[in-house]
């Protein structure tokens, strides 16, 4: 009887121990990740501009150290309410006139039926990006058919158009994401960068290290190297992980800025319907890296308009 009780007690303590270890296991929670500190951000950025900007030789180079050091929080009125001192050129392009910018960036936004968010996005982003004093242009790629939304394909289309205009850096940006830290320069770093690693809907934590969605800065050459996105991911989900897998396949690592520079806010919207096949596509994606992407992109361009605040591309997929 005594022996039985002792063994029963041992089993109880073992069960408690297993339960406690499982309850506190860190792998079940938000990930800690390596990041670039604020003082190293500028060194990591690739200073390259489009040809027309490079040919301008009138004056000094723009200084970005103050913007990075101060890292102001701009996500508040009046920057979210109206365009301040509108000097944006037709087609949503801007470059500072008093100095030579070091970075040229094409911001590609896939879009369908989110007018209110697009309006908020354009107002805030122009106020935000002009203070960074970079050369940028906003491309809005609208899917103009009733098929399921294909975010990846729209990115491919936008990337082709932007690369045709000689942009060396692409920012693949969702329309509902708003950067909160001014120090996060919208330029490409040496490795593809996951920009929104501190997103408010994830409680400013990174759920898992392989997360590569939302806003991504990638060089045009790297995007060509991995053959862009897969065109097969219709509906919500999976295409970001596929791009991450493509980069891993090419031994290309990604990077992130520190959480203080990577805080993003997501606008409220109704949730999309998940793509049920996305897990299957992710699993066998390796077979299609070289055949499915930029080199197999098929679409019909319905319209190309230069609006005041953005370049509008309407496509049928």
């Amino acid at each position: 009887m005594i022996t039985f009780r002792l063994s029963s007690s041992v089993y109880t303590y073992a069960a408690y121990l297993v339960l406690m270890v499982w309850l506190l296991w860190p792998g079940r929670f938000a990930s800690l990740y390596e990041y670039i500190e604020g003082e190293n951000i500028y060194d990591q950025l690739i200073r390259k501009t489009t040809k027309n900007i490079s040919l301008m030789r009138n004056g000094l180079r723009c200084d970005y150290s103050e913007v990075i050091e101060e890292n102001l929080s701009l996500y508040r009125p009046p920057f979210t309410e109206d365009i301040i001192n509108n000097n944006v050129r037709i087609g949503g392009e801007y470059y500072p006139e008093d100095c030579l910018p070091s970075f040229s960036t094409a911001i590609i936004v896939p879009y369908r039926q989110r007018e209110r968010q697009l309006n908020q996005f354009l107002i805030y982003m122009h106020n935000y990006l002009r203070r960074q004093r970079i050369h940028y242009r906003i491309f809005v790629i609208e899917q103009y058919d009733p098929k399921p939304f294909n975010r990846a394909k729209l990115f491919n289309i936008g990337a082709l158009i932007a690369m045709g205009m000689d942009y060396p850096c692409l920012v693949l940006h969702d329309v509902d994401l708003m950067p909160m830290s001014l120090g996060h320069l919208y330029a490409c770093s040496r490795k593809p960068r996951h920009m929104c690693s501190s997103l408010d809907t994830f409680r400013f934590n990174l759920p898992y290290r392989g997360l590569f969605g939302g806003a991504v800065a990638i060089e045009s050459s790297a995007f060509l190297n991995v053959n862009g996105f897969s065109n097969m991911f219709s509906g919500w989900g999976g295409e970001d992980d596929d791009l991450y897998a493509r980069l891993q396949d090419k031994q290309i690592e990604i990077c992130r800025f520190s959480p203080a520079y990577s805080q993003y806010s997501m606008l409220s919207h109704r949730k999309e319907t998940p793509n049920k096949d996305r897990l299957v596509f992710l699993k066998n994606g390796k077979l299609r890296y070289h055949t499915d992407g930029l080199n197999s992109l098929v679409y019909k361009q319905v319209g190309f308009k230069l609006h005041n605040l953005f370049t509008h591309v309407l496509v049928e997929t």
Partner: protein
Amino acid sequence: MLLTFQDRLRVPWRGGAKQITLDNVAPIALLISLQLLAAINFYCSLFVFILIPLLLLYLKRLLGKILPKSKFFNLWLISSGGYLLVLFELVVPLLEILPQENVAFILLLSLSFICLFKTNRRAVLGHIAGHGNGAAMNVDGCKNGNDSQTAVLISDRDDSDDGGSVGDGGSRLACQQCRKYVPPRAYHCKVCSCCVQRQDHHNVWLNCCVGKANHRLYLLGCIFTLLALLLFANLALTAVCHPTPIFNVYGVIVMMPDDCTDMFFQYDIALCFTGSIYALLMAVFIAISILKQLCFISCGITYTEWRRGDHVNRRNCLWNWKTFCLGQ
């Protein structure tokens, strides 16, 4: 028929079958059913969260009459804690929660459980047991039956804090139910069937009396439970709703939820949401209880004394708290 069913309801246990009574099964089944019902849509959750306080209030009165020793509320409390723990560890999206936040929650929950468990265990230390020599004494005095919960102490009451000497027979207090002399500020609990030293109240949630022996542990347990519930609600709501940052503490961003629309779009998110509302509901009642305790401790009286109308002026607030903390 019901009695026969209840008599036959048994589960295999070590050393033979153990009988399970209906008031032991009901809280677990009721709680889980109501929580699953609340997560269906907004109107169901509104209905459930109005129903739960009313149901518990009604059952408290009902069981107080027909079954005073019922463990219904004790099991309801334990089931609530277990449900919230399982909900947090299995349903709340943990990939958005830092490991240290989880450690804080587990720590608070463990501390509250330990305190309340010790409160229950130490209750017997406050019970006045043994056979007094009062049988030989001739007890005189009038009877007062208007208090059904606590018996009336007869003879002259000595309200000084020092105990009456044994030699002074005239100032000793006697309990009519226990048929023996008891120290000052001891009161009879009908449910426990004995006198409890400095009884505050009989707590149906812990299924024991709160008195001199376990009052401090009880207060501490309530505080830890309140903190655990608030932390649970904050973590779960900021994980499933849209959070807004409030301030930074040692690199951890403290957030509050600011947009909880679309909560019933997905059932597991709705479960997290309704679980958080339930935790906040519990937190409100526990906060009220803590406030009452703080008031009575500051005044130097117990809830039983307050209800009996014994408005004795103890010295001052600071002295009362010192006495409470030292357990004198």
